[in-house]
Each structure stands twice: as structure tokens, then as C-alpha cells.
């Protein structure tokens, strides 16, 4: 693919925005409330599957199916969270990983979810199942409207790009406001020392559950947007590694800086998608099939180097890390 082709960069922008949402979901749980969820991708997967299943098998309207998908993600957050709000951080990390792996095994093996082929197989091997019938006209109408404004740049992907980034921008503003509110202060206190917070009359469990719910909503939204963007998805779209991409985006920007998320997301998008399609040296040394491995290798290397050299991210203050205990 030509790197000068704007359509390519629009697509990269959409992916970056969706990962940015996932990182934001992680932010509210990890950076704000101190809950190290290592299985965040499960929110995305569950929301996407619930939506697709409801549309394909139960003929539910797309909007309601989407809402139900997000509700399912929230329910999962609570299911994993209610026992784990009592657990210490190490254990929460493991419990959430276990939960997300369960979702992945189930979606890969159940007939209901289409097994390894994913959404297209939801009606069995003889039918080609789609869940975007109602989505296409909607996104087309947006594209038509945008074309009036910006001309031929407006494509379906471009509409999606606008949709994703407007959503992300609004949510970022909301979270920034929340973070500076008394509510955010309690969250931070819980991250630092939940017993101290409890000793001052703060209902720690309630706040942790709120963080889990919010993370579920935003993570579920990311899953639904992802499913709508790519049209067809399979369990492979929700590999456990995805959760770590979200961590990478958080760290790229700076763990405790909510407005750094879009920067991290763009950098990650370029790094990730860029290495997928670009073919100059040294990427030219390996063939396209193997480039997927090389791409992941590079992502891993960046994660390691970043954590080693600048763990506070680009905008974080090092002294905050030193105070950590």
C-alpha cells in the first residue's frame, strides 16, 4: 500500500482512536482507581459479540444491540470485579486475565459465536452472517453530509474517523473534569491507600465498582466501534496482547496524564499499522506473512525500551514514580 495514500492514514487514525478508547477505559481503572486489570480486551470482545449476536440471531435493532453489548461488558466488569475488589493488586491482575481468557476460549469454541471464523459463522457454515446492514446506510449518510463540507476526502473510513475521535475527545473532556472533581480525589486516594480512604468515611468498594463500570462502558464502546469498523471479526481480533497495547498507549503518553492518551494512541497507531503496511528497509527483508511477527516484535521492543528508559512516559514527571510505594 502506498504510504502517501491518505485513505491509509485515515484507517490508521480510526484504529488509533479505538485503541485510544480502550486505553481510556484502562485509565479509569488503573491510573485513577489503581485496579490493574490485565484482561481489558474482554470488555471489547464481549460487547462486540453481544451486539453481533443480537443483530444476527435475534434481529434486534443495531442501536439496542449496541447498548446491550455495552451492558454486557459492564456486567462482566462487575462479575470479575465484585469478588476482586477485595483482592490485593497482584490477584486482581490474575483474576482479570483469567476472566478474559475464559471469554476468548468460549468464543473460539462455541458454535453460537461462530467459533474460530468469528462473526461470519454465527449462522453456521452455510450462511454468511453480517451485522452491519443497518450500519452501512447510517455511515453512508454521514459520509454524504461530510462530503458537502470537506469534499472528496470524505469516505466511510473518514466518517468513522470523525465519529471515533469526537467520541474520544468528548470522553477525554469528561474524564478530565471528573479527575479534578472531589470524586476524582477520592479515586486517587483509593489508588494510593484504600484503608486510609475508608478511615475517612469513603465507601471504597462503591468507588471501585464505579471504576469497573466506567471501564466496562468505555471498553465496550471501543469493542463496538471496532466491530463496526472492520465489518467482520473473529476471536483473533481480541488477543490478550490487545490489553497490553492499551497499557503501551498509556505509558507512551504518561501513566497519569489523561490528555496524553490521544498522543500515545496516535504514536501507537503509526507504529503498529505503519509496520503492517510499509515495506521499506528493514521491513523489506521479510515477506508480508512474516511481517506480522516483525511488527509484534517491534511493539514488544518499544514497550521494553520505553519502560526502561522513560517509564513516566513523555509527559509524566519522574518524581511521581519515585514517590510510589
Amino acid at each position, binding site marked *: 500500500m502506498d504510504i502517501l495514500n491518505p485513505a491509509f492514514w485515515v484507517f490508521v487514525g480510526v484504529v488509533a482512536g479505538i485503541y485510544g478508547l480502550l486505553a481510556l477505559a484502562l485509565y479509569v481503572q488503573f491510573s485513577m482507581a489503581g485496579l490493574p486489570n490485565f484482561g481489558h480486551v474482554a470488555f471489547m470482545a464481549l460487547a462486540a459479540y453481544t451486539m453481533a449476536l443480537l443483530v444476527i440471531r435475534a434481529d434486534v435493532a443495531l442501536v439496542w444491540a449496541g447498548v446491550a453489548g455495552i451492558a454486557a461488558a459492564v456486567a462482566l466488569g462487575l462479575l470479575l470485579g465484585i469478588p476482586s475488589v477485595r483482592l490485593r493488586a*497482584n490477584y486482581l491482575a*490474575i*483474576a482479570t486475565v483469567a*476472566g478474559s481468557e*475464559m471469554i476468548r*476460549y468460549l468464543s473460539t469454541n462455541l458454535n453460537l459465536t461462530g467459533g474460530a471464523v468469528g462473526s461470519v459463522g454465527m449462522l453456521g457454515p452455510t450462511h454468511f452472517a453480517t451485522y452491519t446492514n443497518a450500519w452501512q446506510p447510517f455511515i453512508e449518510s454521514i459520509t454524504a453530509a461530510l462530503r458537502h463540507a470537506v469534499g472528496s476526502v470524505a469516505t466511510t473510513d473518514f466518517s468513522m474517523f470523525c465519529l471515533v475521535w469526537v467520541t474520544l475527545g468528548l470522553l477525554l473532556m469528561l474524564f478530565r473534569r471528573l479527575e479534578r472533581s472531589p470524586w476524582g480525589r477520592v479515586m486517587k486516594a483509593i489508588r494510593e491507600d484504600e484503608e486510609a480512604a475508608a478511615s475517612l468515611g469513603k465507601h471504597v468498594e462503591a468507588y471501585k465498582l464505579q471504576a469497573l463500570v466506567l471501564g466496562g462502558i468505555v471498553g465496550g464502546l471501543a469493542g463496538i466501534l471496532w466491530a463496526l469498523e472492520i465489518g467482520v471479526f473473529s476471536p483473533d481480533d481480541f488477543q490478550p496482547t490487545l490489553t*497490553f497495547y492499551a497499557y503501551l498507549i498509556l505509558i507512551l503518553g504518561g501513566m497519569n496524564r489523561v490528555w496524553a492518551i490521544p498522543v500515545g494512541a496516535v504514536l501507537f497507531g503509526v507504529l503498529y499499522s505503519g509496520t503492517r503496511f510499509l515495506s521499506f528497509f528493514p521491513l523489506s527483508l521479510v515477506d508480508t506473512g512474516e511481517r506480522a*511477527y516483525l511488527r509484534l516484535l517491534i511493539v514488544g521492543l518499544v514497550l*521494553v525500551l520505553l519502560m526502561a528508559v522513560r517509564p513516566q512516559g513523555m509527559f509524566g514527571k519522574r518524581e511521581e514514580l519515585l514517590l510510589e510505594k
Partner: protein
Amino acid sequence: MLNEWHMGSLLLQLIYNGLVEGAILALTGLGATLVWGIQRVANFAHGDYMTLGAYVAFLLDVTWSTNPVVAAIGTVVATAALAVGLHFILLRPLRGRGLVALSLITVGLGLVLRNALFLVAGSQPRQYAFNQTAVIDLGFVRVAPAELWTGIAAITAVPAVAAMLAWTPLGKTMRAVADNRDLAEISGIDTDGIGLYVWIVAGALAGLGGAMLALVQGTFDPNLGFNVLFLILTVVVLGGIGNAFGALLGGLVLGVVMEVSTWPPFFGGVPTQYQPVVGFVVLILLLMFRPQGILGRARVL
């Protein structure tokens, strides 16, 4: 009547299979639990250390056709060296960054190792030259020689490491470092030096476990260890972080529970592909009632 007899024998076979699988999990979980407890690293690359072991063994066994014993020793040495090398180059300089930060580093490390293996060794399934069709039929259970070796390795290695921790000076030193790192340093222990031994044990056991897993499975690819990574971390948490006997017990319990869950009289039997789900359910249930793990000690305020 015949059916009942058949089911009984099947149950024995499943328990046996579970013990073999559990032995591998215990073997690798033991290293992971020591690293987590003493070095304060939840090593998400542990599975990839195993995979690397399996490939080294393949190189020695198939490509260079050495004696299986030589291959086993070579594997253990190679993975121990890898673990120690990464400890000195990467993890030791970053100590004190907190568990989550170090875990993320090992996530990145795992991605690098796994995908490097895909690039170098390719994604096609590999198989050892070991004769895997030979089966010893003991009447009630059928035992493959590979499984026998695995069982022997686990039954000797785990208690040996546990005894080392309980009684030898090195073991006591390791426990002291796990307990209170600064005080250990003040007491005259070179804590960096101890890290070396911990990683030797962990790396060696991971390599051995990886080769064993590949052997028992029959074929393997670069995802071998990563596929069981979460089960290994489950074993660590089940047993109580840093607890060697806990890892042994956790591994065996998990292995047996996962296998026996497929026994038809048990609610019609869980389909084989859902075995890991059973494992994770066990973990989550246990954590609800005993967050510190089976043998871990509860902390009070």
C-alpha cells in the same frame, strides 16, 4: 456394568493425565513463583522461556541428533543462561519500579522472544525424534514413556527445590531476601548474587518444562509456552506467591481438576477444549474465598 467399568478406568486415566499435566505446570510454576516471590517480577515471558527450551531441545535432538540426555542438559543450560542474561541486562537495572511496571516489561520481552522465534524457526509444527507411539499398558492406565519421564522430572525437581529452600544456607538466604530485601542486604547478603541463583533455577525449570510439554503434546510451535502462560500464573497464585510446595500442589490440583472435568459422569463431562476455562473458574472461585492462595499466609492490618 461394562460401561461402569469403562467409566472407572477412564477416570483413572484422566487422573493420570491430569497428574502428568499438573507435573509440568508445577515444574514451571515453581520457577515462576520463586521469581515472583524473591525477585518481585510476575514474569509474563515465562511461557516464552519454556518455548525457547523446547526449540533448543529440538535443535539438539532433531537437527543435531544428540543423545536425549545431552539434549535435556543442553536445554536446561541454555534456558538458564537466557534467564540469567536477561536478568542482568534488563530486569536487574530496573528493579524497584514496582510490580506492574516490571510485569509490563516482561510482556514486551515475551512479545520479542515469541515473535523472534516465529521469524527464525517458522510457524510450522515441530516434533521430536523420540518414539511417541510406544505405550506401556498397565491395564488400568496407559502410560507413554514421555509422560513417565515428565513425571519423574517433576517428582524429583520440585521436592528438591523445596528442600533446598527449607534447609540449605542458599535456600534460607533466598527466603530472607524474599522476606525483607533491605535487611538481607544489611545482613551481608549480596542480593544481586541471589537473583542469579533464583533465575538459574527458574530458567532451568522453564526450559525443562517446555521440552516436557512439547514432548507430551506431540507437536509444538512458537506459541507453545504462551498458550500455558496464564495457567502457570494461575498455579503461582493458587499455591501462594513464592511458595514452592504451593506451586507443586497448585499445579497438580489444577492439572487433575482440568482433566477430570471432562469425565462424562461429571455433568456429562466438559468438552476438552474448555479445560482451561475450568482452570480459570477454579482460580476465581479460590481467590474469592482464599485470596492469599492455598498455602499463602494471610496478612493482617
